[in-house]
């Protein structure tokens, strides 16, 4: 047999071969060099660490380094298999720029995008939460392969950016502030109260779970609700309907729960109230058609956020306090959250969609004026509003996929406008 340390050294050589092989592929619009450098650095560090183990490493140390080698191999494999064209790269580019700011670390983090699996595959593979010998953190944002052109669903990734945000220690004060504002006095802060909540709403078999497990479940639910609120404040009013659509597709009743996730209705209640608190459930000006689309969108949303379970964990006042605190904290420290001023061109975008024009805003090409950039989140919100109008009694012959594609083109156009603004 091969001794474990020798096996490990051979694994390093194998990883090096894989890394060089992976360079033959183009897996992103930029940054391939940065990934290669980071992976090379990790490999060099792993080799140095193995060399430092001495003649008689412990079994635990060897196990740990085998794990490290496996993780590095898996990371290279995921990077290698992510191809431009399998997801909405324009949206991905925008999201990456946002996430870079929100997730800034001791070294600039790296993000790569990939497509995988069905509707529930939206996720972000964060670096492991425990310390590991890495120079820059690498985050892998995953889109469902089947929904690559459904740009209106992609804002749910704001929730996943929230998880990446929480991995960074310096974000702890923000987490604590929002946690205090939103969860103080709720059943997610007390084992006894959580047990009582389970007995009331999901009677039958929960009392036997050990307190330690119940506490971890409550902790996980708080994190999920934090990330939902984070997703809303960062992505803006395009976020809730994406969340609602996907969660409802997976759980039509909206009341199932899991160890990691609270019942969807609780999450919808949070969104509904927070949207109202942030003032995004209305537009101050605009045509009657737009006003109606906004009103109907949020009225329909509120229906899904109703029922005994929906309001059973967070009161309206707690959600409002949490939303204010989240917006306040992000404004102070990471101002890449969605801003009310981004809603200014909403009516133009909405009108363009209804006549099958990508919602890029009014551009004055005749006068050769510089093009105006529109926030991609507003583009996507206009898509949801247009769909509400189209799917009602408008009689317009546009499918949901048509609206998605028009929005996707508009987001792509924003990248062109940004490139034009930078100049040659």
């Amino acid at each position: 047999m091969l001794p474990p340390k020798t096996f490990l050294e051979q694994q390093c050589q194998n990883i090096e071969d894989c890394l060089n092989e992976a360079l033959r592929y183009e897996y992103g619009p930029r940054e391939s060099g940065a990934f290669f450098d980071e992976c090379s650095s990790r490999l060099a560090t792993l080799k140095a660490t193995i060399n430092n183990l001495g003649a008689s490493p412990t079994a635990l140390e060897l196990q740990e380094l085998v794990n490290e080698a496996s993780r590095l191999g898996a990371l290279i494999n995921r990077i290698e298999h992510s191809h431009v064209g399998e997801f909405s790269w324009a949206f991905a580019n925008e999201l990456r720029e946002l996430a870079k700011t929100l997730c800034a670390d001791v070294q600039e983090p790296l993000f790569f995008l990939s497509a995988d699996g069905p509707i529930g595959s939206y996720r972000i593979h964060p670096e492991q939460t425990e310390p590991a010998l890495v120079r820059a953190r690498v985050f892998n944002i995953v889109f469902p392969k089947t929904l690559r052109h459904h740009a209106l669903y992609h804002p749910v990734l704001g929730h996943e950016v929230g998880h990446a945000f929480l991995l960074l220690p310096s974000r702890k004060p923000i987490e604590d502030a929002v946690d205090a504002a939103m969860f103080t006095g709720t059943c997610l802060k007390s084992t006894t109260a959580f047990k009582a909540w389970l007995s009331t709403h999901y009677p039958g078999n929960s009392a036997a779970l050990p307190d330690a497990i119940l506490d971890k479940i409550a902790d996980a639910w708080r994190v999920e609700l934090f990330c939902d609120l984070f997703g809303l404040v960062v992505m803006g009013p395009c976020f809730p309907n994406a969340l609602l659509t996907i969660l409802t597709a997976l759980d039509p009743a909206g009341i199932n729960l899991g160890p990691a996730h609270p019942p969807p209705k609780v999450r919808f209640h949070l969104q509904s109230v927070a949207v109202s608190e942030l003032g995004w459930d209305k537009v101050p000006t605009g045509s009657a058609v737009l006003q109606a689309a906004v009103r109907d969108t949020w009225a329909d949303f509120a229906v899904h956020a109703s029922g005994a379970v929906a309001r059973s964990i967070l009161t309206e006042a707690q959600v409002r306090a949490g939303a204010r605190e989240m917006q306040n904290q992000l404004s102070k420290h990471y101002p890449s959250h969605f801003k009310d001023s981004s809603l200014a061109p909403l009516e133009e975008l909405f009108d363009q969609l209804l006549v099958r024009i990508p919602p890029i805003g009014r551009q004055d090409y005749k006068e050769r004026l510089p093009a105006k950039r529109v926030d991609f989140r507003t583009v996507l919100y206009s898509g949801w509003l247009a769909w509400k109008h189209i799917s009602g009694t408008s009689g317009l012959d546009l499918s949901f996929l048509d609206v998605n594609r028009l929005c996707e083109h508009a987001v792509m156009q924003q990248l062109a406008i940004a490139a034009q603004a930078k100049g040659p």
Partner: protein
Amino acid sequence: MPALGPRLGEAAAPPLDQGLVEVVAFLTIPTRADAMLISTTAPESDPRTMCGIIAKTALSLMDAPQNPAAGAVEATWLRILEMYRYGAFRHTGVPRGMFDFEPIAQQPELMQRDAGLDLQEAIRRVHEAMEPDRSGEEFAASISDAVRACFGSQDAVLRQSKSDQLRKFLKLFQSSIAQP
């Protein structure tokens, strides 16, 4: 209203109110489908062992700051010290998608004590031993400066001035993390 079991536990599981012993057994014993000779995924990392290795590597590279691994050692220690400063050590297990509804049986970290707390405690012991009069924030900042000087700076004089402090920290940490 549906019962909790089908989601929190597994569909075929016995009801959870049959007693704690049965509950824990159900949550931990793999089913026949789960039982495999070789796991397809690497076992989860133990942060205590990993941090011991990180400390050992840092000590060995202190005299070789040009080593290509120095950048990773520097960034890793800055993150660990930031975690100490903010009390942010935590273990959240494997990454999950936002729409996963996996039963507890597939989430072993729910059954485990959070080993990240041991790291917080290990650094706190070193903090007490080295600079008890300083706050956690000041201590973390002071050691972070030493980490930057020893692994990220070209200034030999600065490195020399900080190396004793960092070496002491790393050795104390190694012995502290080894404590049960």
